[in-house]
């Protein structure tokens, strides 16, 4: 017990957290039980009109029209900049974070796409709109009315960095499914990206008779690629096709840019003890690493007014990158289990299990992703076997079957697609 508080949050903040959590839990319930109004009236010096609601959220299109806002969406479709006469802010799809003037603010829920339009949680009216319009805003939910102040009256306040810590620990993009996804026909895999680990200067593990991880995993990946193309008719992309190094982020980016349905990183194992052999499969832990600690320290500095355009962009990129895999963890776990099951069933070697681990190459993958260790080349016997064509073929076949299992699971609707 004593331990928890040490690597948990500072104690003084715990109470504030609990309060916040209870307020947040109460919010959706209140929204559902009340008779929902269709419109929110707004008025202020020289301005009046109404905003459309989308469920218990405000419709972005009506906001833009009412206040003459402009917007631009980035190519990946995961963020949108909104500009008004008072200033600008950036929205992140499926995220409650808004970024403005170098400060993050946390909305009561994520920005969502509803029936082709974007909808924002109601507290955007008081947390985001003032920056855009340059006017103070007071919202009266009971009367469904928004009172706006004079032009130039808004003073933007960033939220407590504690909110961000809370946000990181509870937001899961798979907690809701956009309407259009619900009606989608089950669809199997169409693109698979395979990642042969290491390459070039990164040789990876090395066996006692000179087997190199980088060579072995490329050979197995090529075999698996052929099997998948012939057997499942899917498009397969390898992150490297020869002996050269590709950066870890680049590997994930290849999968993202190809809009892959699956990303599998293939490695060969090693450890300090030669006796150890077998198979292991990994998927990412929920918090991509413990680096939130450092990340939020950076944000806190930002909240204190340390600003810079390039820095801010880099920070945002880093957050999106770290969050990318979190919405696919259930599917990634499923994928990892299927891979491990097929390997231990078909190939000689012990079952060392499926685990979560903070593996850099899986972070940033916007699709289900796993890393498989296809055997220990630090074990002399398994090293010999791994060099055999037949053993490599068995491994490739097992990985193929696991991917086929996943494909079938999708078609039968047993595995849900991620929210992407």
């Amino acid at each position, binding site marked *: 017990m004593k*331990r928890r508080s*040490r*690597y948990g949050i500072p104690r003084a903040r715990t109470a504030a957290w609990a309060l916040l959590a209870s307020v947040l839990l109460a919010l959706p319930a209140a929204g559902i039980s009340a008779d929902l109004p269709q419109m929110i009236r707004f008025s202020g010096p020289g301005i009046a009109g109404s905003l459309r609601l989308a469920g218990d959220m405000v419709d972005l299109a009506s906001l833009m029209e009412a206040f003459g806002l402009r917007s631009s969406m980035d190519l990946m479709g995961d963020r949108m900049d909104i500009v008004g006469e008072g200033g600008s802010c950036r929205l992140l799809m499926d995220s409650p974070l808004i970024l403005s003037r170098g400060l993050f603010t946390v909305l009561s829920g994520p920005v969502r796409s509803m029936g082709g339009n974007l909808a924002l949680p109601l507290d955007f009216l008081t947390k985001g709109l003032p920056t855009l319009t340059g006017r103070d805003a007071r919202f009266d939910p009971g009367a469904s009315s928004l009172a706006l102040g004079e032009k130039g009256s808004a003073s933007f306040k960033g939220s407590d960095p504690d909110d961000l810590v809370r946000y990181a620990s509870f937001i899961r993009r798979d907690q809701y499914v956009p309407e259009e996804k619900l009606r989608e026909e089950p669809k199997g895999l169409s693109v698979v990206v395979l990642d042969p680990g290491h390459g070039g200067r990164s040789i990876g593990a090395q066996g006692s008779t000179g087997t190199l991880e980088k060579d072995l995993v490329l050979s197995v990946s090529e075999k698996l690629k052929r099997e998948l193309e012939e057997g499942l008719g899917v498009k397969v992309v390898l992150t490297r096709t020869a002996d050269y190094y590709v950066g870890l982020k680049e590997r994930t980016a290849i999968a993202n840019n190809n809009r892959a349905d699956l990303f599998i990183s293939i490695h060969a194992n090693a*450890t*300090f003890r030669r006796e150890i052999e077998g198979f292991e499969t990994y998927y990412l832990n929920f918090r991509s*690493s413990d680096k939130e600690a450092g990340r939020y320290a950076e944000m806190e500095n930002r909240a204190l007014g340390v600003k810079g355009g390039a820095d801010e962009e880099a920070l945002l990129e880093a957050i999106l990158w770290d969050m990318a895999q979190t919405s696919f963890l259930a599917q990634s776990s499923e994928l990892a289990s299927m891979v491990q099951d097929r390997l231990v069933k078909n190939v000689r070697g012990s079952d060392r299990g499926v685990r979560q681990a*903070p*593996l850099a190459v899986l972070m940033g993958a916007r699709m289900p992703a796993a*890393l498989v*260790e296809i055997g220990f080349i630090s074990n002399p016997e398994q090293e010999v076997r791994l060099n055999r064509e037949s053993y490599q073929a068995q491994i490739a076949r097992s990985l193929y079957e696991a991917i086929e299992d996943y494909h079938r699971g999708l078609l039968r609707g047993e595995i849900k697609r991620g929210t992407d």
Partner: protein
Amino acid sequence: MRKGVITAVILVVAALALLALGRQWFGGKAPGPPSPERPADHAAAGPQTRQVDLYFADVSGQRLSLERREVSGESREDLLLHVVEELIKGPLEPGRVRTLPETVQVRALFHRDGTVWVDLGSAVRDEHPGGSWTEVLAVYSVVNTLVENFGDIQQVQILIDGSRSETLAGHVDISGPLRSRIQLLAGDWE
């Protein structure tokens, strides 16, 4: 009766004053990169010796496993540096396995505001056998040993040859400061 009230008031005021002083003393320190020139903390002064639980691997290569050892140093940071060196020496008792190559050097160690920066020589990358979980155990043998043995350490940032690195040896993310993972004693991430 009245005297009692006055005493109570004095006590409360004194407690508040102490609290305020404590806040001023311990709070408000700006987080920032380590600089060796900054004056050492109180805890860092003078030679010291400590019983430390070192986190090694077990024979299965799946879990971390403890070995108790006495470590001393000329100052707090010197002590911490020796603790990491003891990890590199490897286990003395049977049933435990090293987590770091024996050729690794500890180039430097800084401790500021609950964060420790450990700068390891490139052997930690180049001589590491490889393997994802072997790398997890390597990283967290250092992190857990420092965080779990010293109450004033919350997180550890591993540097290689003086720089931040994306991974230790190609798999495990060490790009930021890391917190302890006590569940690794049971072979799980959490």
